[in-house]
């Protein structure tokens, strides 16, 4: 087990290093870093001063050493727009994104698993088929389009829910959250649902396929033969066995949820990291873009590492095959 953990941590570090090198190449080696790191509105003297201060006149390897050293200190440059360290601005927006992503994750499980089990138990019924058809739609329609339709229906036509923003927030353990106020919840329903729809479709398909497979197993037949109630068979015997793959996939998907939040946050004007990224792209605020990328990479790599380790703790076959190879 220890061999496996060490090996897996090593892989994560390699992934981080690879991404850091790619970002460095993208910013410093391809194109002119002066354009990327220095405010486009600066004059000649300022450009010369900043070039010297950032060490852009030094050889490439020295610049790389500097970049890595700054990376370890969490220093990714200063935002042109806000005039404050890029890392600080991103971290300030992190809670809003995490709140949205976690809510969406819970929603996709709470709604997706029951629907998937139902479709798996009755694959040929009208209900089962409609669930599958809906999941194909949720799967294939672009996220931003679903969000626009939600705004059109629930905010513009029906006027039930607000179309954007975060609403009233309260402070919880030093972090501002929306889910504890009525107004915040009203603002959160549409974006959270929008972000959840894609994962929900994934959960539905996964749960359905697994349910169909598990239903054919001997132990389910045995449980039936033993005369257990079908509620007990579904809740205990089927659900237990389908949850491992579902939870694994969802864990891995939490990282992509943060990336997908870019779209949802833009559509619903939710003040998270994703909205910040799009605003920064439009304002050419590149230090913030680079900081966003590095932070997201760290988050995704960490999530993947934790999920893998948990999975191997739950399922010995995984770590055995990994150690062998």
């Amino acid at each position, binding site marked *: 087990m220890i061999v496996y953990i060490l090996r897996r941590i090593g892989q994560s570090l390699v992934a981080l290093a690879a991404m850091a090198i790619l970002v460095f190449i*993208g910013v410093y080696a391809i194109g002119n870093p002066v354009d990327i790191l220095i405010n486009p509105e600066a004059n000649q003297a300022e450009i010369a001063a900043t070039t010297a201060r950032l060490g852009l006149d030094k050889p490439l390897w020295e610049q790389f050493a500097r970049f890595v050293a700054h990376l370890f200190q969490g220093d990714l440059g200063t935002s042109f727009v806000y005039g404050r360290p890029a890392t600080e601005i991103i971290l300030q927006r992190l809670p809003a994104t995490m709140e949205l992503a976690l809510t969406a994750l819970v929603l996709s499980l709470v709604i997706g698993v029951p629907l998937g089990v139902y479709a798996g138990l009755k694959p040929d019924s009208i209900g089962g088929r409609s669930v599958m058809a809906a999941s194909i739609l949720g799967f294939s329609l672009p996220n931003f*389009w679903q969000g626009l339709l939600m*705004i*059109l229906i629930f905010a*513009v036509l029906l006027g039930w829910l607000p179309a954007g923003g975060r609403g009233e927030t309260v402070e919880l353990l030093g972090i501002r959250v929306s889910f504890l106020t009525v107004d915040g919840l009203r603002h959160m329903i549409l974006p959270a649902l929008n972000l959840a729809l894609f994962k929900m479709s994934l959960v539905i398909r996964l749960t359905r396929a697994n349910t169909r497979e598990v239903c054919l197993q001997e132990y389910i037949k045995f449980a039936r033969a033993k005369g257990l109630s079908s509620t007990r068979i579904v809740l205990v015997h089927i659900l237990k066995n389908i949850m491992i793959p579902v939870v694994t996939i969802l864990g891995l998907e939490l*990282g992509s949820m943060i*990336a997908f939040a*870019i779209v949802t946050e833009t*559509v619903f004007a939710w003040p998270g990291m994703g909205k910040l990224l799009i605003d920064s792209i439009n304002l050419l605020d590149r230090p913030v873009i680079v900081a966003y990328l590095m932070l*997201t990479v760290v988050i995704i790599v960490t999530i993947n590492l934790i999920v893998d380790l948990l999975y191997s703790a739950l399922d010995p076959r995984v770590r055995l095959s990994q150690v062998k190879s």
Partner: protein
Amino acid sequence: MSDDAFISGLAPIAAAKPVSIDTPLRRIVRGFFEDRLAVFGLAIFIAIVLVAIFAPLIAPQNPYDLAQLDVLDGGLPPGSASMSGGGIYYLGTDEQGRDMLSAILYGLRISLLVATVSLAFAIVIGVTAGTTAAYFGGKVDSLIMRVVDLQLSFPAILIALILLALWGRGVDKVIIALVIVQWAYYARTVRSSAIVEARKDYIEAAHCLALSHSRIMFHHLLPNCLPPLIVVATVQIAQAIALEATLSFLGAGVPITEPSLGLLIANGYNYLLSGRYWVSLFPGVALVVTIVAINLVGDRLRDVFNPRLQK
């Protein structure tokens, strides 16, 4: 196709009608056409492609020729007649008086062009990488697959968005970004089926004939790995269209001078809250119909190619 599946598919028909020869291809085509929904999807998709190709002939106006636009006709709802007597705007107009129907037809061209060109390049790169990995194995395999795994552990939209944020907008840049995020899917798909095929007797026979590596890889190995590749490619083309639309919607995709469906939706988004729904809704409907049609075809292809579902 394995020989067993071939023979079992062949036997009953051969017994009834000894004259007709049933090839795997025919069986797949027949299997595909048994599903009416998939045929419907295919028909819609072909119609969309034709409409996109012949857009300049079909569209009532050239939406990017400013001389043909009439500002007086700006923001008209669907079905209204032109103020200057130029005809009826069936899907309404945008702020500049641009006919939405024409804009959508031209937008489809850009969307489909970006998706198909990036698909072609991604397939060539991915298939070469995947076949090479499976054929040579060992260090080559683990090197290529490490890169693939590394890339697939990050969401496609994140990679594409960051690349475009650093490069700026442009049709060519969007295509390159889509190729970069898509090749890994094909590499993984081809490699997983090629690694099974590479151990079979016919590949060993090809080795005994002292054929060159590239000949064995692309003439013997690759054709037998096509079914999963076709399924993934169908699904991926829908993904590429959706991804391009998303990037353009976010303002990081195609430039304003060459608007795809995603950019049309983004332009209309500003008017959504003021009730001018059509500027955003109809390009979206066109996008959704295209994607759903491709997915219907892809779902059926997956079933037809899946040996486990064959009786």
